[in-house]
């Protein structure tokens, strides 16, 4: 029983945190978000470092590491809000790697691993999706339908209409496949599990950074002659933010471990993680705005970027309610299986 990272994993975490602290400073993220642009220079740098391919098999040009390593990067990207399409690229790759045919893997994974091609994951129905994160830049899009079936399609064969989501730190688009694309050769469930872990981990990073900012603010901000953080109405809110964050973190860690080491647990673990992390992301960032008071509601304070990122990540592939419904089904199956015949 050991929740610790290996030395190599800790190196990845430290390197990622240091690099993003340097390259994705809040001023830089704000500048790009206000201009509605992603950070091409940073993306190229991350591609050179092999980040997009971290969890893609070596035979397809990736680093062949696991979902734990991918989740470490996603958490750091969530912390920094770096405006790069790593998450959507990793999500598309997860679906193709775990649910695609050999041919589909060979066709798409090398360019996703190198970052040559940006990926995106769309979830929708009847061949279209109204909001696809990273969709405007994507070269390949995987569409997961409500019934769990998945199709992969070159973006050039689909209708892609760029749009601005509430989160301007990433591109977005409305995507329609029509009849284009081809069904993934295998079962999309495993890939979805890995994808849910990656999104959950980004949400953990968002929560973590949000809590740090909020604690720093309420220690500093004075009203009635004392720091507002000395009032229990405020400090207990912060304690609740920590509890939500740590629950989310442990659920995401369990799911990442299951993805790499105990696939039989992945479906359940991923649903738990996505429910816990989606709810935590929304609660913690909303709490942060409240704890910041009036300034938290202004464009100039940075908390709103985190709040907005949390909304999109929480909605992506379904939030708390959808995944709890999923879990309720798993619980029902389990009771049914243990019932005497």
């Amino acid at each position, binding site marked *: 029983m050991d929740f610790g990272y290996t030395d190599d994993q800790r190196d990845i975490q430290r390197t990622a945190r240091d690099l993003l602290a340097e390259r994705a400073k809040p001023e830089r993220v704000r500048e790009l978000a206000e201009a509605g642009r992603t950070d091409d220079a940073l993306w190229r740098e991350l591609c050179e470092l092999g980040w997009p391919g971290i969890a893609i098999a070596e035979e397809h040009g990736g680093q062949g590491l696991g979902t734990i390593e991918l989740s470490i990067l996603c958490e750091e990207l969530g912390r920094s809000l770096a405006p790069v399409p790593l998450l959507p690229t990793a999500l598309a790759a997860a679906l193709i790697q775990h649910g695609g045919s050999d041919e589909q893997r060979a066709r798409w994974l090398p360019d996703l691993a190198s970052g040559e091609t940006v990926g995106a994951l769309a979830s929708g129905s009847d061949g279209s999706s109204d909001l696809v994160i990273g969709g405007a830049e994507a070269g390949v899009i995987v569409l997961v339908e409500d019934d769990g079936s998945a199709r992969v399609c070159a973006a050039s064969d689909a209708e892609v209409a760029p749009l601005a989501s509430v989160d301007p730190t990433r591109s977005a688009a409305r995507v329609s496949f029509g009849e284009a694309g081809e069904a993934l050769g295998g079962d999309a469930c495993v890939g979805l599990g890995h994808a849910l872990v990656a999104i959950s981990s980004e949400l953990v990073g968002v929560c973590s950074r949000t809590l740090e900012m909020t604690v720093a603010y309420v220690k500093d901000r004075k009203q009635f002659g004392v720091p507002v953080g*000395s009032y*229990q109405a405020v400090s207990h809110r912060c304690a609740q933010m920590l509890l939500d964050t740590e629950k989310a973190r*442990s*659920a995401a860690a369990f799911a990442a471990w299951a993805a790499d080491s105990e696939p039989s647990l992945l479906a359940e673990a991923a649903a738990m993680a996505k*429910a816990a992390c989606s709810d935590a992301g929304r609660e913690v960032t909303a709490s942060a705005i409240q704890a910041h008071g009036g300034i938290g509601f202004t464009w100039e304070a940075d908390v709103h970027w985190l709040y907005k990122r949390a909304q999109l990540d929480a909605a992506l592939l379904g939030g708390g309610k959808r995944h*709890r*419904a999923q879990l309720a089904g798993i619980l029902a199956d389990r*009771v049914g299986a243990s019932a005497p015949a």
Partner: protein
Amino acid sequence: MDLTFTPEQTAFRDELRAWLAENPPEAKPTSGDEHDEFVWRRDWQRRLYDGGWAAPSWPTEYGGRGVKPVESAIYFEEIGRARVPFSANTLGLLLGGPTLMVWGTDEQKERYLPPILSAEEIWCQGFSEPDAGSDLAALKTRAVKDGDEWVVTGQKVWTSGAQFAKWCMLVARTDADVPKHKGLTYFLMDMEQDAVQVRPLRQITGEAEFNELFIEEARVPDANVVGGVGNGWKVALTTLMNERAGLGFALQIRLRQLLDDTIQTAAERGLLEDPLYGDALAELHIRCETLRLLAWKGLTDAERYGQPGPEGSLVKWLWSDTNQRLTELAVDIVGPEALTAGTDWSYEFLRARGNTIEGGTTEVLKNIVAERVLGLPRLKAAA
């Protein structure tokens, strides 16, 4: 990251599981008499003792197995999973013994530890007072030196097991002229004297799990001071730090069992397909599982990094809140039976109400998290 047990840990678990299967406790007495129940739990502890399973985390020199915290947590998970009773002398095993191992003299360890383990002498905890709950250091029970004895007068409350106890871990004020944390001393008080009166304290479940102690000039020999005169606060903290360490793992398994029972009942009544119940049960499932993960993470991080992470303060908070939510939902699912006096469900439901108060109120736990984990400024309180 490896969220499985090592082969050695698995072997430890399997050995204990097999022993528990072969050595079940006697059937719980049905008389409803608390003394009968005490005898049942004492006999159970003796069976554990004879099998070498009363306190595996105690060092071998004191009769334990000297196992590490992970094995100790496995022990409590298995105790919970087997649905066996808690040992009659749980407070001695978990709090008194470990406190003496840190602060006791060699003579004290030799005299007191063996009968704790064998349940020959039962221990109780005399900390809280009517006017000193969360603010424990404000306690008023006085101890005055008289020759080579101390004379103790005061009142204690929430003293579980006092009616069966031989020894009381008592914190009393020995110096009223210094700041409140500095004037305290930790004593072992003999409960078998007329100057100590035990009065049962009936709680909302109707049972009297706790007692009040009325102490009127009780005598405590100087040799029964633990950790030195005036050092009582530090010694008491050692006791409090042990308070939830082990038992938490058993309680969290019991929570899981209660949830499984609730899910089973919901399925039988066709409520599991109802999206509202499904959502609430799935949320409780997530809470139970993250609780276990947090507890294990706290424990293993403490082993790995030498200090616990933030999880320790969060686990009791999350457990108590979850147990209340679960039993409330169970009332909805189970229906009238859960509101019928004397049923197991009505007991679970009413008993859960104390969870967010006992062993540190949720409000105090939030203060601890805010001040010690997040480093927020301390609320200015009257001295």
